[in-house]
């Protein structure tokens, strides 16, 4: 029973953080599918999302759920704007140069977030805090349940949008072949902007989820978003399903390593849970070079 309790609490915690990673990863994947670019600016978009939520809650007095939606809207706008200004001129350039441009954008936006947030941690006014749910002998943190439901819900809605709506179809067509979809009357440039907007909105939501239950957010928390990089590689750069599966795997593995941290310390060193995601990613790449669900690149000679 004792072991089962530990197992369940680790599982809930891991699934909670893992689905947040999945949410971030989906943001990466959507942009990658549309433009073949890994968006290294995602961490900055995430932290700005948390900032705008806090701004709307504390300065404008908007209720928390509405503030989150408004922040998602704001970040969608900033995302689309970034694409138009910095990324659109890179169409046709090697994907790596474009990825480097996003690194430049990251620096600019990240410094902006430092400037906006300042040195005091901000709170998004989220309702979960350190509350717990008690089921019999078991205790779960509310924030983990909330993270799981909200993140997976948002990913589900995004997937539904891509699968069922006309615009989603156009986006998938653009991802498959830009020239052909252009010939079919799809406004490819607008699809690029839209994928950045969706990605910015998801990043904002992820920022709120990361900040929830932590007591406060500082600009350096942006780097938590880097955890999504092993997730997208493990899942496959172009697969939303892969992001979810890999996000959960890495979240649970990390939570497990964290809860056994004191047992593991003598053998493999302190805080080994920080490198567990990267180790899993490397092991997986040895077996599957395109991740679990990634599409192998077909090359003609």
């Amino acid at each position, binding site marked *: 029973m004792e072991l089962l309790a530990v197992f369940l609490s680790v599982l809930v915690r891991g699934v909670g953080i893992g689905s947040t990673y999945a949410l971030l990863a989906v943001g990466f994947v959507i942009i*990658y599918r549309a433009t073949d670019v*890994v968006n290294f600016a995602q961490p900055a978009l995430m932290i700005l999302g948390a900032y705008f939520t806090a701004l709307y809650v504390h300065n404008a007095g908007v209720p928390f759920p509405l503030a989150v939606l408004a922040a998602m809207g704001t970040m969608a706008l900033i995302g689309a704007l970034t694409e138009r200004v*910095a990324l659109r*001129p*890179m169409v046709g*350039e090697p*994907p*790596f*140069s*474009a*990825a*480097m*441009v996003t*690194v*430049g*954008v*990251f*620096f*600019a936006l*990240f*410094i*902006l977030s*430092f*400037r906006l947030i300042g040195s005091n941690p901000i709170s998004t006014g989220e309702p979960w805090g350190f509350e717990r749910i008690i089921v019999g002998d078991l205790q779960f943190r509310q924030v983990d349940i909330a993270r799981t439901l909200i993140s997976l819900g948002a990913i589900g809605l995004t997937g539904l949008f891509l699968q069922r709506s006309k615009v989603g179809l156009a986006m998938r067509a653009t991802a498959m072949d830009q020239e052909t979809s252009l010939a079919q009357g799809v406004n490819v440039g607008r699809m690029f902007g839209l994928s950045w907007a969706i990605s910015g909105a998801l990043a904002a939501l992820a920022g709120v989820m990361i900040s929830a239950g932590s007591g406060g957010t500082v600009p350096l928390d942006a*780097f938590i978003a*880097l955890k999504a*990089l*092993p997730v*997208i*590689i493990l899942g496959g*750069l172009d697969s939303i399903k892969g992001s979810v599966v890999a996000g959960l795997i890495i979240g649970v593995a990390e939570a497990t390593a964290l809860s056994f941290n004191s047992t593991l310390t003598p053998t*493999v*060193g*302190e*805080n*080994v849970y*920080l*490198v567990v995601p*990267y*180790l899993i*990613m*490397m092991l997986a*790449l*040895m077996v599957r*070079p*395109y*991740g679990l669900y990634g599409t192998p*690149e077909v*090359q003609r*000679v």
Partner: protein
Amino acid sequence: MTGPRGGTASPKAVRATLRGRPALYTDYAADQAIWNTPSKRFWTILLVAAVLVTPFLPFVTRSHQADLTLVFVLAIGGIGLNLLTGYAGQVSLGHAFFVGVGALTASVLGGMPTQNVVGFELDLLIWLPVSGLVAMALGLLVAPLAARVRGLYLAILTLGLVFIGEHLFKELRSLSGGQGVGRRGPDPEILGFGLFHPQEILGVQLDRETPWYLFTFLLLFVMAVLGRNLARSRWGRAFAAVRDRDIAAEVMGVPLLRTKVLAFGVSSFYAGVAGGLLAVSFGQVTPENFGGLGGLLLSVEFLAIVLIGGVATMSGSIIGAAFVVLMPRLVEMFAPSLPLIGDGALLSVQQLEGVLFGVLIVLFLILEPRGLFGLWLRIRNYWKAWPFSY
């Protein structure tokens, strides 16, 4: 070598033909020479002369010399990454890991032992090559895995190295000094001659920084020439073939795995040497310099050196390193006179530096993908054809 009438031309006749036509190559060796144009020869000599004179100019302070030394050291690392990323097309975000391995090896072999850390106080002639070789060994170890994946998968895989490196650097406490503490770097000595001490040579009094400045430049010169030599060799052509189309290269008989592994090995060797030199220049080596976020930033700086300087050019790596080191200095110099910049104003000086760094990367990639080297090419071509536009 045939003359205009079909007969073999005398060397004197060839020289006469060449006069005023420096771009005319009469044989393959001249085309492939390390200094294959007179202007390259001219600029190299000018650069060497300028570097040798600089420390003795009256307005050059010791901190200027330290900055230029940093340029030389980062340029060595940048050349390493350029061989891997620019020539062989394998994008790596893990360069800082190999630099860190070099720095750690140098500190252990060349540094002083204390209560907490081991140190052997060896000669630079031993620890510098060994720090390159240790980094190279790790590079060769990672390479077979890295050769399996491509493009952005590779970039993120190598990013993992930086985080795993942080863990290792922190945990190997008897070598690195542990988290947040670190250890002192080595004190460079060649056969008893201190390279980081005030010296007197031929009656000229040198600052503490000057011998080290001259030594790192000598090393940069040698390693740049070696790098260019590798790039024009059979293996260098194999690198370029793999970068441009790996399947086509394989079909033509370029061994893909061996080429990529070699590129990783050579690049890590350069990184290790640069790391060993950095350990001296920094004075203090901490795990945070080379692992985790610090390492990621260092890796990004190296990529910026390659991209801003010029992809697949040796001189580009040097220009890029100069840019990355000296740009913040210029900003610091001019920032006080700019409006809206300062502690209480819109941006602080550090924030301005960060924003400028990001914005410049974006601008360069958008406006001149060939980097600073490309700007130079434009200027040169303009004057070459002057007064015609092309």
